[in-house]
């Protein structure tokens, strides 16, 4: 008497599975029930971006580091504050670009 092996059990299970169920009008019933797709509105994103930008500006312009960087930038002086400000802006832009590319790739 040979003992049962995993392959035997797999074969038995597969044999006992009847496979895909025939359509028999199922698809038509689903399509009749399908609701109209709601388009996602763009305004929450736009409002979010605007509010975020305003809050960010308010908090940054209150900072002495940022003010020094801005003044340095206006007179063309490459102080450490100016470099930090430019690096931060470049980093944020790159992150936003990466996020956009990743989202575009997913779709």
């Amino acid at each position, binding site marked *: 008497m040979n003992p*049962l092996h995993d392959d*035997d*059990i797999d074969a038995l*299970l597969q*044999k006992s599975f009847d496979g895909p*169920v025939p*359509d028999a009008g199922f698809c038509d019933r689903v399509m009749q*029930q*399908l609701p109209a797709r709601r388009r996602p509105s763009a305004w929450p994103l736009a409002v979010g971006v605007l509010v975020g930008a305003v809050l960010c500006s308010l908090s940054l312009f209150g900072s002495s580091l940022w003010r020094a960087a801005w003044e340095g930038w206006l007179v063309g002086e490459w102080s450490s504050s100016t470099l930090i400000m430019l690096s931060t802006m470049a980093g944020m832009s790159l992150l936003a670009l990466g996020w956009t590319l990743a989202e575009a790739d*997913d779709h």
Partner: protein
Amino acid sequence: MTCVADSAAEARIDQSLVARALLGDDRRAFEQLVRRHQGMVRAQLCRLLHGDEAAADDLAQETFLLAWRKLDQFRSEARFSTWLHRIAYACFLQTCRTKSWAARHAQDDEMEHLPAPANAMDLRLDLARAMRHLSTAEQAVLLHCVQLGLSHEEAAYVLAMPLGTVKTHATRGKAKLKTWLAAWHDAAGEERVP
């Protein structure tokens, strides 16, 4: 090799249909997706519901309506069919939690604990009986991995279980079936498993 290539081609067709359904709001593309996958989704649910075809069809319909609503959340990290199986399994769990199906089924299970006929001739019936005596998780793992042909990783995604747990349930489930069906094998004498 051919099987892998076929599977990749099928996945590409699904992705293109999903893109059409999303970008152009193309209901015909979604209809194609329903036609391509309804059979396996209904088979999955029918098995999970132990042959209750009407309940399986209701859940399958709910699954496809949910898929239509959440289509923009589909990411190509999983095959579309796997994503559908995951939604279907979530619908099944929700039904078990909220409706009376589980209670009705519990009564059926008590019936299954009656002693089996001494000389059962039909291995298929004995297998079905043995499957029902596995834990719910073992049944679900064997259904998805062996009968629906998903990989362990895909089954883990569908069942929302860690990969190691899926492998453990598969091994334990098969070990139990081997033990129970070996007794049948002994009793059947010359009967051979194909």
